[in-house]
């Protein structure tokens, strides 16, 4: 069991022109093992910065990240990452991409190969094992990225708009796959997205962030992710509560965007 706690994270850095940016201010949050949290917010609200701090790619200026009993200081195999564009290694086959983590850890082939093949089957790429990744479509590449992350068996999975670049149909299928993998593996997942619908569908918890400075605006606990497991996601969307929540969050983000636009107009 692993608890991820974000304690008073602030992030502030200087700009070359003498000004400074307050990307995050006093963000505090705690995730229990197995929770799936989606993060929404207008552009510039610091959600990607927060994810990068969680992954250990950036250091916060204040506060700390604790995973169980130790502090996060840099990237580590315990926190897996799925990127918007796969970030696959073109010079490796699909199977070599998926087995990258275990191989780097120096585990023996017989030890990890069964799991790798199993994961490829789960994401539906059993017949593409030996293909080069650049021969796959965008959706397939993203499945490879998911399998690669899972093959390393991380405690927490961080997803940075993993489905953002996919077209609508593939995206919907992939949302189902994410839910399925979440339930089956019981991983803690933080998922950043631009799509309110996706955030509602996948987020057991939903975090809305506000910009300038980046901070937590509101948090929801939602039933849709649990409803959606193993079901047609379109059915979930027909739920009146879903539509009502979507409108609520959309107008919330809309207002924030308006405010930003208004502010820039004033300053001009």
């Amino acid at each position: 069991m692993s608890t991820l706690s974000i304690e008073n994270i602030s992030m502030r850095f200087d700009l070359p022109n003498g000004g400074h940016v307050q990307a995050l201010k006093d963000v505090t949050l705690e995730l229990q093992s197995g929770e799936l949290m989606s993060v929404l917010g207008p552009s510039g609200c610091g959600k990607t910065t927060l994810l990068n701090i969680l992954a250990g790619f950036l250091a916060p200026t204040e506060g700390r990240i604790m995973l169980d009993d130790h502090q996060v200081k840099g990237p580590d195999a315990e926190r897996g990452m799925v990127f918007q564009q796969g970030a696959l290694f073109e010079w490796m086959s699909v199977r070599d991409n998926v087995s990258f983590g275990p191989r780097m850890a120096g585990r023996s082939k017989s030890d990890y190969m069964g799991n790798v093949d199993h994961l490829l089957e789960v994401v539906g790429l059993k017949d593409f094992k030996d293909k080069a990744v650049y021969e796959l479509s965008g959706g397939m590449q993203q499945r490879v990225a998911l399998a690669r992350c899972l093959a390393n068996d991380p405690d927490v999975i961080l997803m940075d708009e993993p489905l953002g670049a996919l077209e609508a149909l593939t995206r919907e299928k992939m949302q189902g796959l994410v839910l399925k993998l979440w339930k089956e593996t019981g991983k803690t997942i933080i998922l950043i997205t631009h799509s309110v619908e996706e955030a509602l569908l996948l987020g057991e918890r939903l975090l809305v962030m506000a910009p300038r400075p980046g901070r937590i605006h509101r948090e929801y606990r939602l039933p849709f992710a649990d409803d959606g497991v193993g079901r047609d996601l379109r059915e979930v969307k027909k739920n009146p509560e879903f539509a009502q929540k979507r409108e609520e969050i959309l107008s919330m983000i809309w207002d924030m965007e308006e405010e930003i636009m208004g502010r820039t107009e004033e300053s001009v």
Partner: protein
Amino acid sequence: MILLIIYIAVFALSFFLVRKVLRGAMDRRDFTSLKTVTFGDESAVRPDRWASIISVVTIFLLWGAFTGSKWVPIHAPGPFVGETQFTYTLEAPDGTRDDATVYAQVFKVGNEVSAPEVEPGDGIAKNDSIVVGAWRSELLLMDRNDDVSRSDGARVVAIDGQPVSEGGSVKVADGTVVVTSKGALNFSPAKGMQMEPIWLPAPEAVVKRVGEIASERYQNFTLWEHLYWSLVRVIVGFFFGALVGIPLGYAMGLSDWFRGWFDPIVEFMRPVPPLALIPLVIIWAGIGETGKIILLFLAALWIMTIAARAGVSGVAISKVHAAYSLGASKWQLMRYVIMPNSLPEIFTGARVAMGVCWGTVVAAELVAAEKGAGMMIMVASRFQLTDIVLMGIILIGVIGYGIDILMRKAEKWLVPWKGRV
């Protein structure tokens, strides 16, 4: 000028012929053939293989035609060869005039000929005979055998009946006669439009030379040894350049300190052409192998350094992040992500470096060497052995082209994902 007009004419004519005659025969039915907008769409411009073939054939035909090659059926008019004659009119100081005939034997340089025997004839001017090589000219002291000479005050007043004075010239049947400022005659037979072999030898002469030098020796080494040594220098120089340059480029792409330390050096050395270093390298290391290899090492070093540095900066940050999140160590990141990811850049650099090295080795050998392709053509040019020079240039071009093709094949094989990501 005429050559240029002929060339343009062949270009245009073959274009229309190929378009008209072969249009139906070589219809392509692939996707590109269906594009209607091709003017401006670079991807729709594919080299016409017929044009390539005709282009190369044309060069050889023109080369043969203007050098009188036996391999080519049509020839440009050659130089006059054979017997010809013209008359000159000598005027004695007392005003008497007399005509005399000059019999000229024009021969191909290299053949043995003797001057034709002529009757001296009568009158004060006597007939003469001269021997002239094709493309050459010959001074004729026509008054040697005349009754009155120029020292007596006699002068040539007409040639073939056309009046002429000192410094003037007259066109005769097969050439031109110039009256020199001292009053003697200078006969140049018609040159035609072909090139003299010492300017441009015929293709068969060049091919014959290849055979000769391949089996015998030129300047103590056979042709293959000359080319082999040039290639060995390039490969050794390039190898060491890459051996030092690639790690240096990686270091510059991965460390602030390395980047700061070597940036000024690399940026300063990069625009210095390797040829400008030849004098210094000769002073330091002499004209032997060491000097050549140092020069080629320097030529390849900066190119490979910059290519490797660009390769590192070309790695998408998400790939680096992904590898670290999957638990890779710094060394593993280097080995499994940065090195393979920089291969395309390194190959591009290697192709450029090989080209530069090949050019530099020939130039360095031109300056000073004991063996090598450049040395061979340099020495040959001193003795006006144009066929060897030409052969050397052609072989250097062919080898350079061959190196590039090999590098491209290797790239396709080693970096199959290039341009597909």
